[in-house]
């Protein structure tokens, strides 16, 4: 199994189990903050989500040859509407738009299951394969194993054994490589961690990190260098990828739909109140010194959530920093004063 299906998803609502059952490797696309977006800027105005423009730039420049297709999954409106541009400029042999619902009610569940069925039909027709319930159930089980391991490993951040950046890098890797390889990697990592004692400076400020998609591990390292340790997060390259499990041995598509519709809400979906409930749960479970909310420049969904978050967190009385970040590493230096001032407040 070497062929990959790329995933363009600003949330993490793509049912990887279906891609795995099609004998393809699901590979989430991530941005590259070291490139500029000249080609993408010819298609999309520069005041649109810089992360999605960065992905388009990579697409136009050419994705790896082993990527045979692309699924764009409904996340935020800005990324959704790029499907047409990708179709025109990055045309791969298989392209599908998965309409993961914005709402989480019964009708949305039915709708989601129908669209996943359509995805299965198109994958079967295109690749000449058969996606059986047995295969789907096997991969639900595999994904659950990965989620369990990630959740267990995640705890070593608050135990001050594992750096936030190391964990971030691990989650990112799991979202791009063969899942059996990922399973092995996680098992080995967990075994190594169990033998380690806390070595991270206890004096670091313990942070809950939330916000837009944060996929540059260097950004987490920047925070670490300024005296912070991310002990928990509310990110799609983080807890939202593994916090809950799918039901096993039930109707597989119903189980997958229920998994996605019942896991922590992102800023791209609503109601925001539910997203905040998850953050409150994390605050109850983890002793954090403060919360950092990072909006990728022009990420409207995080910008919409910020006033509500700000109000709620002020009521709770926990230090809260909201920043808007460019998608290049030079800009991290300019944010230094804000982070240092936040450290001083804490």
């Amino acid at each position, binding site marked *: 199994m070497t062929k990959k299906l790329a995933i363009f998803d600003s949330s993490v609502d793509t049912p990887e189990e279906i891609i795995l059952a099609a004998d393809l490797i699901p590979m989430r696309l991530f941005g590259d903050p070291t490139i500029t977006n000249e080609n993408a800027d010819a298609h999309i105005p520069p005041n649109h989500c810089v992360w999605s423009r960065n992905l388009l730039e990579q697409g136009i420049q050419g994705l790896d040859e082993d990527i045979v297709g692309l699924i764009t999954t409904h996340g935020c409106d800005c990324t959704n509407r790029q499907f047409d541009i990708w179709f025109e400029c990055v045309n791969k042999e298989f392209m599908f738009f998965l309409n993961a619902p914005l709402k989480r009610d019964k009708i949305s569940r039915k709708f989601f299951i129908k669209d996943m069925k359509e995805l299965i039909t198109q994958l079967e027709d295109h690749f000449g394969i058969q996606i059986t319930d047995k295969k789907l159930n096997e991969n639900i089980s595999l994904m659950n194993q990965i989620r369990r391991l990630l959740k267990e490993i995640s705890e070593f951040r608050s135990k001050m054994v594992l750096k936030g950046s190391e964990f971030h890098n691990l989650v990112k890797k799991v979202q791009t490589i063969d899942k059996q390889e990922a399973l092995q990697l996680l098992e080995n990592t967990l075994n190594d961690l169990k033998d380690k004692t806390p070595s991270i400076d206890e004096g670091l400020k313990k942070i809950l990190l939330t916000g837009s998609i944060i996929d540059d591990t260097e950004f987490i390292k920047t925070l670490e260098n300024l005296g912070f340790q991310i002990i928990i997060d509310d990110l799609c390259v983080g807890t939202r990828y593994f916090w809950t499990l799918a039901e096993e041995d039930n109707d597989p598509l119903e189980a997958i739909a229920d998994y996605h519709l019942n896991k922590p809400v992102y800023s791209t979906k609503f109601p925001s109140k539910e997203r905040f409930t998850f953050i409150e749960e994390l605050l109850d479970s983890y002793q954090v010194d403060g919360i950092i909310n990072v909006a990728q420049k022009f990420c409207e969904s995080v910008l919409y959530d910020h006033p509500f978050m700000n109000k709620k967190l002020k009521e709770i009385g926990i*230090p809260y920093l909201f920043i808007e970040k460019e998608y290049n590493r030079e800009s991290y230096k300019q944010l230094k*004063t804000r982070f240092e*001032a936040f450290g*001083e407040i804490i």
Partner: protein
Amino acid sequence: MKAVGLDIGSLATKLVLLDENKKMIDWKVNRSTYDFKRVGGDLFKDILKEHNLSRSDVFVMSTGYGRNTVDFANDRITEITAHAKGVQYFYPDARSVIDIGGQDSKAIVMSSKTGNVIDFQMNDKCAAGTGRFLEVMSHALEVPINEIGTLALKSNSPASISSTCTVFAESEVISLFAQGSSKIDIAAGINKSIARRVAGMAKRIGVEPLLVFCGGVAKNIAVKEYLETELGFEIVRPEYPQLTGALGAALISFDNHK
């Protein structure tokens, strides 16, 4: 021991000397130029010489954009914390700060109980709403920067500057000239534009009275008045609005060496 606070901003470097009783006994201001380290070092040498002091007689705390270039400082602090501390020297009951410097502007809210910073907001991505905007506009109007505020207050009908971008605002000023607007009305429009932008940022974090307006732009009387209109309450301005960062840094250095 005495204390020196050194605030190296993008446009101006400010130094304050406090005596053992935390009384401000001297201060200096110079252009930061491109060589922060040299300008800060020169001001420090001068003040030591003028007061017959040696390096070991003073604590030094640096702050501001160039704080990390000061290799002779005992410690460093961000300008956010420094300004909050500095304004409370003049106004112990201060709850909020608006600081408009050369290349950034910031709003700060302090706790009524502790006086510590509890929230802040910065604009350092865009020249609009900063001292640089005023400099560019003064040049366009051919009015010295220290006169643009007084000139603005003579206006009964401030011009509307709609652009939030310094470059486009300059074009807008030229268009206003072409349409026959007076220099006074345009000056008022420019000052209002800064006040509107900064007040918007300040309202987002819930600034409250007593609000202290500091930074170099606080010397501009028109921006102060327009800020009061935008915020809906009176604000105060210390005698030396440019020095609050350096002063706060010096005060914090005392606290750190208790």
